[in-house]
């Protein structure tokens, strides 16, 4: 039996892990951190889309809440996408200070976002969509990033 909450929380932890690896690498050499930064952004994007294209619509259909918590999460995703884009620009400009300033901001934003999802939204999602968890997790797993 799959669990939506656990599945998405695992995503968070693996992104956190990549984030710390990215910072470590950037601390040694910013230019060499490009690859891992791209990997981090790729994983984040996949996680965002798992939510935005699969879990959120299911949640909205089931609960009828369209402009509620999911909409707020989408907005925060946009904020983070913007910051991640700037991370790459900082690498291209070889601006280490900028990079770490951005990563610091992203970290707080990201963790605050994760906390809200893990403590509230995922718990609600699991409650409402628990019976269809197998199907939803399978769809998230099979998702091809656009």
């Amino acid at each position, binding site marked *: 039996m799959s669990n939506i909450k656990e599945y998405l929380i695992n995503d968070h932890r693996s992104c*956190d892990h990549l984030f710390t690896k990215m*910072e470590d690498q950037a*601390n040694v050499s910013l230019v060499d951190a490009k690859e891992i930064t791209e990997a981090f952004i790729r994983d984040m994007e996949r996680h965002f889309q798992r939510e935005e294209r699969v879990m959120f619509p299911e949640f909205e259909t089931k609960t009828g809440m369209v402009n509620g*918590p999911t909409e707020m999460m989408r907005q925060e995703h946009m904020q983070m996408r913007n910051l991640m884009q700037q991370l790459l620009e900082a690498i291209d400009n070889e601006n280490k*200070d*900028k990079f770490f*300033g951005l990563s610091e901001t992203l970290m*707080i934003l990201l963790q605050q976002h994760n906390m809200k999802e893990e403590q509230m939204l995922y718990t609600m999602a699991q409650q409402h969509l628990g019976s269809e968890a197998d199907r939803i997790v399978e769809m998230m797993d099979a998702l091809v990033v656009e």
Partner: protein
Amino acid sequence: MDFNGLSLDQAPPISAPLRFFITAPVFGFFAALFLFFSDPAVLVNRFSIEAIVATHLITIGIFGFVMMGALTQMLPVLAGAKIFAVKRSALVGYLLLLFGVVSMVFGLMLNSSIVLWIAVGLLGSGFFLLISLMLFAIKGVTYFTPSIFGMMVSLFFAFSIVGMGLYLLYGYASGDMSSFHVLIANIHSVWAVFGFCGILIVGVAFQVLPMFYVAPKFKQFFEQRVVLLIGFGLLLWSVLILFVPKYLLFAKLWVATLFFAFAITVWFNLNKRKRSISDITIWYWRSAVLFLLSGTVVWIFASFYEGVSITLVALLIGGGFIMSVMQGMLYKIVPFLVWFHLNALGYMTIPTMNEMINKKVARVQFMLFITALFLFVVSFFVPWIFKVAALTFMISMAILEYNLFLAARIYRRTKKSKPDFDMSAFTTQ
């Protein structure tokens, strides 16, 4: 189901918390100035007017202001707890407290009962207003985390210490010191340090250490029980001091052990953090741990040796532990708030957090703060050092204010320009 936890306008307006944060170091500066012109021999007596004034410039001026600001920000964001009319309440509470502290200081120094009565009114209404609104907001929280629980318990202690504080201040205002005065003052100070500040820091640490540093979460037992255990220990301590003071040591050991364990846990969790980047805020957490460890040990020792001054305990725990955590968190929160609110207004090219506060200046500020504390400790044995300590502390507070003020100014300056909305979503692919 209640979805209050997630709404679009969760974060309170930036002015609500920032006003408190920016004011706190100013009180620190004046506390240092006051200390500089005071006689250390008088200050050692904790019941001297000078000691009470200096203490409250720091405890209300810094601790109270930072805590109220932090709770105004954290309750809505981390708990979804909506504070009633947050913008107006925070402003009114702020003004009441601001003038409350000032009138308390002048009332005590001038020995003016009218001014002291004004202080009772202002501080009482300011604190009770904010604390009640916060507790009321917590009542509506659906998803209760250990952090929120810590904030709630800490607010209950805050409520009680304000009540006791007003009673004590009333004693000075009316010139009517009851036989309870010293006893209430004892409970007031221990609850303030361990109940209000201590428990709040424990609760906040559960959330911010994993959040800022990707440190491991605290053990479940710790998260779920420690706040209750500390609260119980403090109640036990109060019952003992009231009725069977000879067993007081048991309760002291109880409370001290829990904080000792907390300090050790924070230290090791920071060692195990996944983010290896070390910044000024980590230094501050480290110094907080060391001061808390030494402070609790001295607190216990003070039970055995008459010569150990309780002022030293206050210095280590209040000055060292509590102030370290607060300064560390201010260095994180203030630039983040500036970034967050500007971003929400549509500004995309905002200075990063690192560009808002100069790292080197922050490091100098940290060094001066730690040096000041060491010098204060040394001054217990070498009195002439005291003025040097006060001066160092004053400079460190001035730099802290400078650092936070510069970050806050970026918000103002950027807001005067036009936002550069990100239009990429509207461009054709």
